[in-house]
């Protein structure tokens, strides 16, 4: 057999049959460029009014997925081709998931910021407002009061329940409560609103009953399971050695829980409570039903309708008056305020969790 004596450098055995580094990126850039050109031509030919960037990126990515598979199949074989296809598809999924988030934050900032930084937005209510003036004071007051009372109701119940589940609960009752808390997590928010309405109608006999307190109760129904879940997770993290050390010193069980277990996990519990507040503060449907809507400031939780921020956003959009843009602008500004509140709550919660996390000796 003739030994191959071909001139030229020996191919590196480790890199033959593999695509050179950077090929993937070049294919990606190339397919985006190609589709960008195609869409550009379509626009120049008068096919579309605006340049369709999202369409170009999306179809370019699809073309990339196909090209990668074909090229890799020709060079590397079917197994590597499938692997590369899966990688590019998974990455595509992630990018697709990011698109709405980016678009949403961009449009809310673009449309809401200008109206929100006008002083009238935080100094006026909507009472007797017909034009571009008016603000969200009544809604912010309502949101703060209703959410605070909801938290006052649900934090003690939720925390005590989680203590029961972790420290005391054995047997059927604990299992049933765990299951029911899980199921309660899935109650649609509007059903919670209907429950609060049905409850107050039966109690007061007034079919047109609306009040902020009802809203608090509806939100508490939604909030309790979240508090229970998160506190339970945190209490479970407390090492058993701490409890045993406390018992060994003769400390009663309830004092062990109050003085050892809760202080150790308080950071995580606070985080969970704040995240649950962040979850319910944006709820619209139950408040639309039981707290109603009004244009005036109302500080009284027990009597009369009470406006809230999410409901303000909804009504400004759905009941547009004479000058539509005024109402839509207020809706965007309200949406931005709401997002900022929720993000701030999330951020503070995570900071608390990070800063005050118990230092376990390890």
């Amino acid at each position: 057999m003739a030994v191959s004596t071909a001139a030229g450098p020996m191919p590196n055995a480790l890199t033959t049959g593999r695509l050179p580094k950077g090929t993937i990126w070049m294919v990606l850039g190339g397919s985006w460029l190609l589709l960008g050109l195609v869409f550009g031509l379509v626009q120049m030919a008068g096919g579309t009014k605006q340049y369709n960037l999202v369409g170009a990126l999306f179809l370019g990515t699809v073309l990339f997925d196909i090209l990668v598979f074909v090229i890799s199949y020709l060079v590397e074989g079917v197994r590597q081709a499938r692997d590369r296809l899966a990688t590019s598809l998974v990455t595509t999924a992630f990018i697709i998931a990011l698109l709405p988030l980016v678009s949403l934050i961009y449009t809310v900032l673009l449309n809401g910021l200008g109206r929100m930084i006008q002083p009238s937005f935080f100094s006026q209510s909507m009472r007797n407002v017909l034009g571009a003036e008016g603000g969200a004071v009544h809604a912010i007051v309502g949101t703060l009061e209703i959410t605070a009372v909801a938290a006052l109701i649900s934090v003690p119940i939720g925390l005590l329940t989680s203590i029961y589940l972790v420290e005391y609960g054995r047997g059927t009752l604990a299992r049933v409560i765990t299951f029911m808390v899980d199921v309660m997590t899935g109650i649609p928010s509007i059903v919670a609103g209907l429950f609060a309405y049905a409850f107050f109608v039966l109690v007061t006999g007034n079919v047109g009953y609306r009040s902020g307190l009802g809203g608090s109760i509806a939100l508490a129904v939604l909030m309790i399971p979240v508090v229970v879940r998160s506190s339970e997770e945190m209490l479970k993290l407390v090492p058993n050695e701490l409890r045993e050390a406390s018992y060994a010193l003769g400390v009663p069980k309830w004092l062990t829980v109050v003085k050892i277990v809760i202080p150790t996990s308080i950071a995580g519990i606070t985080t969970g409570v704040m995240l649950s507040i962040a979850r319910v503060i944006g709820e619209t449907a139950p408040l639309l039903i039981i707290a109603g809507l009004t244009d005036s400031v109302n500080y009284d939780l027990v009597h009369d309708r009470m406006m809230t921020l999410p409901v303000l956003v909804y009504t400004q959009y759905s009941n547009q008056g004479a000058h539509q843009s005024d109402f839509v602008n207020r809706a965007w500004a309200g949406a931005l305020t709401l997002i900022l509140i929720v993000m701030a709550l999330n951020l503070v919660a995570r900071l608390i969790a990070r800063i005050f996390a118990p230092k376990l000796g390890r």
Partner: protein
Amino acid sequence: MATPTTGAIKARVRLGDRVFSSSTVFAGSLILVLLAAVAIFLIVQSIPAITAKAGTLPNAAPNFWVYVWPLVFGTVWAAAIALVIAIPISIGVALFISHYAPRKLSQGLGYVIDLLAAVPSVVFGLWGVLVLAKGIQPFFVWLNENLGWIPLFGGVVSGTGKTVLTVAIVLAVMVLPIMTAVCREIFLQTPVLHEEAALALGATRWEMIRVAVLPFARPGIISASMLGLGRALGETLAVAMVLSPAIVINFFLLTAQNPNTIAANIALQFPEASGVGINTLIASGLVLFVITFIVNAIARIAVNRRKAFSGAN
């Protein structure tokens, strides 16, 4: 003086212990009472609607079940399309975060996806109707012209983009964070030994995921889907703001005549409802409660069975 010690030594019963433990039991039971109260109050308020005679119900429905049936269909239909969109994307995102992204980045990426969960539903509604519906309408026209022979894309295409497909996309975005979170947790729990064994046998990364990660995670994916379904079924404001509703049952995705959902119908009708109309809406809420209760219960049972058999704990 010396008392005979009989049986085990009993701890002294302290007042604090009694009070504390019984208050925790009380709080736990309160949750059961609350859940029961939700069911009972809704049932009590629903009875007038369920027993109502023809002529008193809204939409000139002869009885409650005729009234609620198109709504049930719309609810399930919109949620099902949302799930068809959301399941592959959420699995992809979860895989990206758990197995593809660089280890240092993955936590931050997970937080970015969680940000989607922090956006209130009314903001999604506003975005859906003012941005998405307008932006996607030309695509709907294209679908209708080129793929109109598929019954789903047939009919007269909506001029506003406020169709059931737009709603389904918004719903898919909204359920994505919870589904991704659950899938991600499960993917991360895959025994590392299984993954390493697959890689050691020469599997590529995708083959490793197919033979080791996905079979392990299948029950988790199912329960994540059910949780997402529960969310999508109960979503109210986003649907109420985006959809242009009608009292119809059809499978067209792109027309202006869309079946409404239970929750959105309640939100739209409640402020103006009176008399039996209110009871009818509450009764439809009860139907929604039962549907989501069943879906969530199935999801939880699937999760719990996984816990029992996985050997991961």
